[in-house]
């Protein structure tokens, strides 16, 4: 019983790690393209976040299950195959069930295949761990990504359209610039600086910002 309890705690740790300590966008600063591309409305940001969450969890689980059959020397191409397979699944699903959103951001759904965050998780975690921890690691990392996208799109839609999830919130004249590409870069820059500030002010971090990468 004691053992089981401990495992549960560590699962929660894994999820928390993905959301806060290793948040894909704000902490690791990888897979940034969608952070700007689809976050001009909360709905699109949320949908892409869900798509990434799905792919991340499925890829991690698949890799963890197959890890004993994959020869280490060909692991990266195999991982890419697994990832692109699951991306095809979500691509076709979205095309069938979320047509309006798919028209707007179909390209970015397909681009999930090139997300470093997914490959990194598969390589660093899932290829070395059993199914259950890998599942929760994927869940945490995907949730962290989803939350980051929702935060960014929350500010952009609120300021740019005066609405949230399509429902009007404020009557004031919106700042159109937040919906344009410029606003996306700006919002991410400001938020990143803000999180660095929190880190420095309250947790004594160095606030060096991410190293950057894919």
């Amino acid at each position, binding site marked *: 019983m004691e053992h089981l309890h401990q495992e549960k705690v560590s699962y929660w740790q894994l999820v928390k790690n993905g959301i806060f300590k290793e948040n894909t966008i704000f902490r690791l600063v990888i897979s940034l393209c969608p952070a700007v591309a689809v976050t001009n409305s909360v709905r699109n940001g949320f949908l892409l976040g869900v798509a990434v969450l799905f792919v991340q969890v499925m890829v991690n689980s698949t890799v963890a299950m197959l890890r004993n059959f994959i020869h280490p020397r060909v692991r990266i191409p195999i991982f890419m195959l697994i990832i692109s397979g699951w991306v095809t699944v979500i691509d076709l699903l979205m095309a069938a069930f979320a047509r309006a959103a798919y028209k707007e951001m179909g*390209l970015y759904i397909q681009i999930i295949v090139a997300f470093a965050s997914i490959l990194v998780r598969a390589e660093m975690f899932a290829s070395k761990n059993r199914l259950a921890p890998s599942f929760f690691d994927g869940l945490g990392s995907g949730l962290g990504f989803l939350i980051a996208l929702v935060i960014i799109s929350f500010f952009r839609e609120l300021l740019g359209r005066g609405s949230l999830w399509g429902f009007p919130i404020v009557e004031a004249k919106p700042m159109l610039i937040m919906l344009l590409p*410029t606003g996306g870069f700006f919002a991410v820059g400001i938020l990143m600086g803000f999180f660095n500030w929190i880190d420095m002010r309250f947790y004594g971090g160095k606030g060096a910002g991410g190293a950057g990468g894919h």
Partner: protein
Amino acid sequence: MEKEFTKLFELFIAASVITNFVFTRFLGLCIFFGVSKKMETAVGMSITFTAVMTIAAALSWLVLTYVMIPLEITFLKIVIFIGIVAAFVQASDTIMRKVSPGLYYKLGVYLALISTNCIIIAVPLINTAEKYNFLESISFGFGSGIGFAIALVLMASIREKLELADVPRPFKGMPIAWIATALISLAFMGFSGIITL
């Protein structure tokens, strides 16, 4: 014939400045922020990218038209395109190591990452979605590559100056680079509407 050439040229201009990959389509941001710290790396990287993108566009068009459409497996395009790009990048990696070891030493790390880069895989995907023909595909790929090169070189020259600027501490590094990018993209909006395809 002349009209066709005009169309290709328009496509090239549109891909390079109007729908610039970095500033309006937000692709390749990862590598854009990763390698824009030094001018030298940025230039080398843009040359590599332009070459890879142009050739990837051509290769993927050939495979799409002569293999995937006759076999009716276009739904597998993501899997196949990533395979093509990865194989091609592996080849260019080997060639570069032989031909230019100096450049390879500098860009080797990034070359290894190119195969999983959104900007490269986006070219064949957009070409397929827009149903471009062979020459149009190449023109689009080349234009996008040049557009990325412009973005990278601009950013590198700004960041070399930013290193010396007195930026508030939380904004040092990545955040200020994003805000600078926002300002460049504002400038690039001025190009929109030059050509309507």
